[in-house]
């Protein structure tokens, strides 16, 4: 066993080094960062533009003392909701010709004024491109009421923080986490495991397969290749997730902590996420390695990749049935089917707090990884190396 593992390690070390230390790996790493980066840049610009153009501005013609109460009320509202959605207000000193001042302000382009407020508590007058029930009018009404009440502050509200959420929102949030976890697992697996289809082409085309097959068992070759690519993928994922977390932290107040909490808790969910990604990768990767090993040329691999991608989408569709109803018969069936099992189980981790199903599932999936690899290596020996006696399924004749 030690010799087998050592052989697999030699193969894995070579493959990992050849992959990670190649120039193309830089493109592999930065490729997925482009959409994130562009999304961040254009999203930021868009948000700024939206802030500047969409948020209405109301001119308030009043004395500074009166405006202070209104501005304070506006700040309270902005803090309670979000500054992005609360109207902007600008004060102007009253002029002798109020009508002319109103007209001039409404014609202003810098800043563009949507409406002009005049008058005093109890008798406000709002003029401009506005109608009754307009959001600007409603916000302004709230601000003015708040400003009025601010003069007579009410009793303070005592806050008692509690982690308990309402059952309805809890189920909804966890389903969202389950769906996100499942989708993340699916996309990472579909993006990364496809590389394994062409893993044996290099060895077959440069004939080194003969040297390797004479020195180590084919099973060790398969295991080494699979784990090398898993390790290379994990390097990529660490880079991408770090960049993604930084981006979320930058654009979303509160960062990743604001995401809905899974049933097993965030630390457990993240650990299971890593384990299930590895399992999903190993399962699909072992299947891809097996299929790809049969291909003699890159052209054959390319021809195979489309139906395989389609198959992955079907598996994702099967796994999606588990979200929302993890104990339904179809969800349990999808958890048992090895190729969809990791995705179903990560969704389950978001929705169900029990740990024992995960232990069973991980052992089950690991057994299937070993089985698929063994079958793949046997197929490779039989069909590619043409090794061993010819056996028919109806004939059990053994050959020494």
């Amino acid at each position, binding site marked *: 066993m030690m010799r087998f593992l*050592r052989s697999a390690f030699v193969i894995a070390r070579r493959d990992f080094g050849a992959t990670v230390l190649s120039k193309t790996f830089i493109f592999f790493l930065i490729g997925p960062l482009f959409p994130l980066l562009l999304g961040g840049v254009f999203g930021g610009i868009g948000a700024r533009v939206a802030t500047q153009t969409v948020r209405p501005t109301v001119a308030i013609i009043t004395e500074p003392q009166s405006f202070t109460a209104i501005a304070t009320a506006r700040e309270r509202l902005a803090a309670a909701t979000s500054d992005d959605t609360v109207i902007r207000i600008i004060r102007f000193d009253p002029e002798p010709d109020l009508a002319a001042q109103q007209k001039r302000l409404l014609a202003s382009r810098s800043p563009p004024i949507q409406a002009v407020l005049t008058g005093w508590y109890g008798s406000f007058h709002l003029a401009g491109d506005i109608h009754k029930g307009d959001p600007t009018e409603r916000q302004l009404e709230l601000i003015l009421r708040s400003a009025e009440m601010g003069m007579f502050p009410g009793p303070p509200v005592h806050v008692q923080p509690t982690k308990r959420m309402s059952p309805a929102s809890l189920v909804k949030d966890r389903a969202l986490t389950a769906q996100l976890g499942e989708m993340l697992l699916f996309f990472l697996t579909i993006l990364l495991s496809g590389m394994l289809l062409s893993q044996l082409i290099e060895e077959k085309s*440069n*004939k*080194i397969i003969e*040297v390797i097959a*004479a*020195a180590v068992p084919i099973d060790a070759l398969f295991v080494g290749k699979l784990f090398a690519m898993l390790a290379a993928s994990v390097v990529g994922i660490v880079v991408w997730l770090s960049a993604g977390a930084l981006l979320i932290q930058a654009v979303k107040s509160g960062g990743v902590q604001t995401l809905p909490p899974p049933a097993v808790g965030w630390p457990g969910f993240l650990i299971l996420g890593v384990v299930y990604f590895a399992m999903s990768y190993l399962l699909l990767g072992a299947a891809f390695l097996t299929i790809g090993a049969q291909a003699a040329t890159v052209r054959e691999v390319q021809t195979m990749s489309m139906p395989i991608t389609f198959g992955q989408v079907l598996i994702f569709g099967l796994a999606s049935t588990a979200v929302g109803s993890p104990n339904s018969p179809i969800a349990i069936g999808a958890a048992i089917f090895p190729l969809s099992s990791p995705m179903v189980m990560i969704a389950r981790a978001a929705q169900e707090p029990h740990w024992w199903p995960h232990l069973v599932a991980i052992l089950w999936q690991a057994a299937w990884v070993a089985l698929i690899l063994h079958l793949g290596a046997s197929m490779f020996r039989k069909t590619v190396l043409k090794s061993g*006696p010819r056996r028919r399924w109806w004939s059990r004749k053994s050959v020494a």
Partner: protein
Amino acid sequence: MLQQVSHSAASNALAVEAIDLVKDFDGTRAVDGVSLAVPPGSIYGLLGPNGAGKTTILRMLIGIIDPSSGTRRVLGHERPLEAAQEVGYLPEERGLYPAMHARDAIAFMGALRGLPLAEGRRRADVLLAEHNLGDWAKKPIRTLSKGMAQTVQLLGTIIHKPRLIVLDEPFAGLDAINQGRLEELIRRETRAGVTVLFSTHVIAHAERLCESVAIVAKGKIAFDGRVDDARAKLSAIVRLRTRASDGPWRSAIPAGARREGDEWVFELPAAGPEPLLRALIDGGAGIETLAIERPGLHDAFVAIAGSAAAAAMGQEKA
């Protein structure tokens, strides 16, 4: 029981043993009942034309493929891969990772056979320097010439100091100088007690290097034994030129003799050269020249495998 034990002990003494190996590919029998016995420390050649089944035999012996039937034992192991760390193998179709540096390629091949990578690199540097490739140690394989790459692969075959070296057509593609170097390397390894088993379709290499050969033709072993025994299957050839064209001496010429120019060519009679010489002198032949030639391995090969197989070998000279 006692008999079984002694048989096992005898088998273990052999470096490689094959019993009745058969290999079928899609209904075609490529190897048909091959049995071999390679003594330890010997140079053993598999000789035969292309397509005779030599590579398939070697691939079965070292465990790349399993036979359809039959058994084989390598360095005492019935599963050849169990002996992999003590075996070095150079395939017919050379293969290296083009992006790997020469020293890393050699060390990698050693690592596949259980040699620690650091030790493999250290030995690779020494071996490359010995073969005048020291300057190429840290250059990618793709930048090496074909001959250099072949040398690198050969060094990778012996980097872990194997007890058995298996070489499939090792001289193919090498120039005369490198062929000489390879022959010297093979002899040096066997002087150190290593067993060398190699296949070739060039009779001259087998004749120069091998103590024992197996002549392979159409998937079968036509002859297996010492090179001298193969030659001994044929009688020595006598080439005679006389001054007299006719006379009583003619009765000493065997019935099957043929004329080649002004020479008589015939097999040396079983009684040996003395009675022949006496009859020629007494009969007044006037011997101008008389040569007795021992048959070469090529002649033995023709006699054993047939002239068609010999023609297929291409009559390639080293």
